[in-house]
Structures are given as C-alpha cells and as structure tokens.
C-alpha cells in the first residue's frame, strides 16, 4: 500500500473514531449499519450487474434472529450477531440458487417474490411478534467485559463491524474474483466463452452480499434494540436502491455516502410530512436522468479536472 494511501486511511479512521464526540452516536450507528447494507447490496448491483428487489429480507431476517436469540436465550452479543448473519447466509444460498437461474428483470422479480413470502411468514409467525416486532432487546456485554449499553462502547463496536464488513467487500472487489464479476456485468456471454463458470461466481457474489447484509441487520437490531416488520418490507428494499443510486452505483464508497445522506435526510426532513415522499421521488428522477453516476461517481469523474490533474486509473 502506498504511503499516501495509508495516510488517507489513517485520517479516515481518526475521523471515524472522533465522530461520536461531535455527532449523535445513534445516527452515526444507523448510518454505518445502512452503509454496510448498501455496500453489500452494491456488490451485487454495481459490480455484478444484478438488481435484487428483495434484499431487505436478508437484513430483516438476521435482525429478527439476533433480536430473538438475545432476548429469549440471553446469548452474548457476538454469538447473537453470528447467529443472525448465519441465517442470512443460509437464506442467501437458498434464494440465490433459485434466483440465479434467471437474468435481468426476471431475476429481480424472483427476488421480490421470495422476499414477499418471507414477509408473510414474518407477519404470521409468533416468534417475530407480528406488527409489534421484538422489543426491548438487551445489548449484553461484549466478550463479558464491555457493557454495550454505553453509547461510546456500542459505537466503536459498530464501527469495528462496519470496517470488517467493508474490508471484505473491498478485498472482494480488488481481487481476481472481483474482476470476473465486473466481466460478468459487462458482457456475460463473453465471460462464459472465456471459460468462466459464471453461475458459480454469481451465486458466490449473491451469498456474500446476503451475508454482509445480514451482518448489517444483526448489528442494527442491537443498536435500536428492536426488530420489526419494516426491516423485511419491500419498501426497505427500495430504500437501499435509493441509497446506492444517490451515492453511485459501481463505486465502493458510493453506497456508504448514499446511506449517510439518506439517514441525514430522514432525520432533517422529519418535520416535513408528506414532502419527504415527494423529495425522495425527485431524487430518484434526478439521479436517473442527470445524475447517473451518483455523488461519488460524479465527484470522482469531475474532481480531477477541477483540480487540474489527469485521472490516473479508473476506479
């Protein structure tokens, strides 16, 4: 890693570590969880070219499992999160295996249909608490030592989870595996003709995406100490598309930035009633018509020119 790059990572890390002293920790944690969720989603959309319209189901089911495990069985937080993430991974394998058989809009529709079935189960099952959800989930003691009820401790824990998850995505993208995914996105028949078993790569990307979305959901259950139907609703799947679109499809940091912007917007606009929906709609329209690269993509494209420097390598 070049020295300049290492320095930048260090500064980002320092900013992240100092952030809870300037901004409200709960919102930072919410943004980090959604940032990880969106980044995982983008692994599938931006880097493999697969639009999943039911991605909330992985985040939501992990959220429910972790909430239930911690409340009913009193498991320690790490085990609880692993349980939730594990369930999301299993669902990812099952749904991925079914959905990968189709392409494009049909793939999207399969994921939507499967997520609706999970939603129905979440409504009916007595384990999920129906529309009340699972409430008053305890946060527990991390490794038996650190009390996660203290906001700062919880924040650093969430930050660590985010860094791990994001590092996995980063590593996946900047690797031969990632290159094959990009090849599949660009031109799948050509990738096949080069001898790659694209079905396996797509499935692996799907499972990875689902697992990390699950990790985000499991952590979110501990942050808010609840799990509810909103987490498996198809409008949540729509929200993650919005975040990725705002930030920039196909960029690494884009979804994270998009998540931060969306969470900030939700908070800042809470006083505006129905206008929130209108504003979200306007953003969708603008992003599709003029702003297709998203915030990060647009900046990455224009900033070098503004700074009078040539762009080195495309990212």
């Amino acid at each position, binding site marked *: 890693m070049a020295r300049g790059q290492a320095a930048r990572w260090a500064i980002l890390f320092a900013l992240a570590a100092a952030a809870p002293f300037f901004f409200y920790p709960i919102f930072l944690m919410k943004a980090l969880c959604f940032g990880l969720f969106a980044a995982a989603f983008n692994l599938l959309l931006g880097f493999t070219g697969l639009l999943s319209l039911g991605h909330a189901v992985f985040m939501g089911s992990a959220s429910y499992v972790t909430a239930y495990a911690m409340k009913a069985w009193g498991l320690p937080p790490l085990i609880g999160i692993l349980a939730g993430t594990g369930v999301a991974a299993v669902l990812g394998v099952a749904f991925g295996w079914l959905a990968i058989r189709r392409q494009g809009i049909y793939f999207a529709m399969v994921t939507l249909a499967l997520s609706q079935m999970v939603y129905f189960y979440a409504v009916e099952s007595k384990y999920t608490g129906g529309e009340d959800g699972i409430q008053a989930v305890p946060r527990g003691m991390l490794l038996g030592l650190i009390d996660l009820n203290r906001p700062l401790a919880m924040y650093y824990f969430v930050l660590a989870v985010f860094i791990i998850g994001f590092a996995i995505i980063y590593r996946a993208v900047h690797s031969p595996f990632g290159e094959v995914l990009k090849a599949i996105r660009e031109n799948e028949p050509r990738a096949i003709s080069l001898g790659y078993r694209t079905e396996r790569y797509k499935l692996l990307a799907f499972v990875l995406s689902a697992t990390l979305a699950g990790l985000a959901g499991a952590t979110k259950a501990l942050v808010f100490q609840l799990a509810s139907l909103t987490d498996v609703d198809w409008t949540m799947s729509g929200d993650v598309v919005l975040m990725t679109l705002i930030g920039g499809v196909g960029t690494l*940091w884009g979804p994270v930035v998009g998540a931060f912007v969306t969470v900030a917007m939700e908070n800042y606009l809470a006083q505006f*009633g*129905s206008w929130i929906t209108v504003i979200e709609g306007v953003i969708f329209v603008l992003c599709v018509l003029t702003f297709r690269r998203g915030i990060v993509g647009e900046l990455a494209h224009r900033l070098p020119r503004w700074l009078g420097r040539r762009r080195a390598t495309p990212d």
Partner: protein
Amino acid sequence: MKAKFILAVAAAAALGMATASGASAQGAPKPIKIGVMNDMSSVYSYLGGMGSVAAAKMAVKDFGGKVLGRPIEVIFADHQNKPDIGAGIARQWFDEQGVDAIVDLPTSSVAIAVQQVAKERGKVTLISNGGSSELTGKFCSPTGVHWTYDTYAMAHGTGSAVVKQGGNTWFFLTADYAFGHALQDDTAAVVKAAGGTVVGSVNVPLNNADFSSFLLQAQQSKAKVIGLANAGGDTVNSIKQAAEFGIVAGGQRLAGLLVFIMDVDALGLKTAQGLLLTEAYYWDQNDATRAWAKRFQAVYGKIPTSGQAGVYGAVSHYLKAMAAAGTDDGIKVVAKMRELPINDFMTKNGKLREDGRVLRDMYLFEVKKPEESKYPFDYYKQLAVIPAAQAYRPLSESECPLIKKN
C-alpha cells in the same frame, strides 16, 4: 482516492449539519420541551398529524406558556410508522435536545419502542392515538401514560353494548395482525360472557382492498352481528363493500371495533348509517366539548378527532401535575398525575392507574342517517355510556410488572 477522501469529509459534515442541534443561549432558563411524534404522511396521519401539534400548542397556551418559571416549547416529528425512526428520534430528543415528554404516538410498534426508550431514561410518554393494550400490559412503564383509548376498551364497549341490544351471534372479519386478533379475542370474550355466541371468523391479510369474498362468508354465516376487527382503510373498505352487498339491508348489523369520526367522514353517511362504534370523545356531545371543538377548529381548521382532543387533555394534565409537583422529574410528575383527578372538557373524574392506564368513561355511538344530520360533521347519536370501571382491563388480568399482586 483523494476525491473519495474529500467526499467522506463532506458527507460527515452534511450529516453533522443535519443532526447537530443548535446551542441554547447561555444563562436563559432551560425550557420544558414537549415533543409531538406521530404519523404525518401516511395511513394514520388523519387521526393526529399536525392537528395533534395544534392541540398540544393550544394546551400550552391555555396553561400560560410557562411552568416552574420556565418557558414551554412544543416540537414535532414524523415517525413514518417505522419503529427505527421513532426510537432514533426519541433517543435524540431525550439525550441531545432535552425533551421531557413525548406525546401522541399512533402505531403500536412505534409507541412500544418509544415508551421503552423513555422508560430507560425516566422520561414521560403521553400516548393518545396509540391503541395497543400491551402499553399498560407487558410493556408498561412508570413514566408511561395511556390517555385516550385502548383496544380492550373499544372491544368491551362495543361488544357488550351490542349484545345488550340483541346482537348475540357474531361473525368476525379480522385483520391478520396482532391488534386485529386482540380486538377479536377481547370482543369474543365479552360476547360470550354476556351470553352470546361467536359463529365464525375469517382472517383478512392487511392492505387487502377487496372484501367481497370475506363479506360473503359473513353473510352466509347468518350471524346477527358482523364484527369488524380492523382499522383505517380496511374498515372503510369493508363497510363500503358491505353496503354494496346489501348486508345491512339484509338484516345483519355492522359493529366497527376501531372506528373514528374521520373514517365515517371518508365513508359518507349514506354508507355508514347505522354503524355502531365506541369513542372517547365526540365534538358535539355537550356544551363543553362543543366549545373546545370550536376553539380547535379556529386554530386548525378541522373538527378534532378523539386522539387530538386527548393530546390536549394529556398535555394539560401533565403541566398541571408538573407545577404541583414542583419538579420536572418524570417519575415524580407522573406520580402527581396519578394523585390529581382528571377533569376537563372531555373527561369527568378520570383517574390515572398505576399501570399507566387512564380510566375514563367511553361512549357508544350510532352513526346517523343522512336525513338526521343537520350540519357538517353531525354524524353521531349517543346510545350509551360505558363507565370507566367496566371499560378497561382489570388489574388482575394484567401482565404489567409494576402492579403489586397480593
């Protein structure tokens, strides 16, 4: 990479601007803050919405704008019916903005979540539009006040009164959600206790627009009463379609277990006539209710719903108790709220019980025929009073851990 670095900083700044609260002036007394949180943009916005904010502000103004020598501020936010958002805003309000009480809270999942957050911090929740009886059951709180109605009272009110009128066989159209089942179970218990029978029921998925199939099943059951254990748009649709299928004309009665005046307005009297329902407040009941409604209408422009009237009542009583208790400490203020009897334009000798439930009289209404209605919103005729002692779940049946069981 550099672009992204700058971007990360910019995003952080954007987030900071959005979440940072303004620093209050040094030296001025810290205001008492009341936060109105409800649905302002979606399915339950007509029950409270900005009207609840207007009601809260009215209460503050009528109280004099100050308590304990400090000014009173009313802020508001839309929880969009999502517990994440509600809990997040509640935490920020309590931890960062010094909010003392959160008011209104429709949508049970959000109400329960916010009451939890408040309970952990010793802050007050005054719930007006939220309905789940679990708020004073297993999720009860020493600083939680459930002011206006709950699902148990609605079920008992309508259930027992209808059976007394001769409706002793029931068929339920139940929204397939926890509150729908709760409404059905509570009403069924009342019906059986009064000597009636439940001949059948059907669970309807939420957000289903067409009830013809279910209404047909109800019709074929030949039950005298069809209980609508649902709310909002589902209730309106089922009543509208029941009229279409000639259910009332065929001799069966409709009992709305969770119906409000704005639902009747959405239906129109021609369709809703004859519907039986229970409410805590109707604007045209007596001089006091009328006078308050006219004042509310002058400020907000619409007739008040029972939830909005409840917000006014709850905030008024809270401020009165705070002045009497001499402190802003949540636990002490709510304890004082329990000591003081509740008497206002809509409540006579109401009492706050130790599980957080306000015991008040409820009223059984029947929707008027179009020719009986003489002026706008002249919708109800009062049939009966359900006294507070009978309307609410007795403490012996409650799961609230705060109650000392001897």
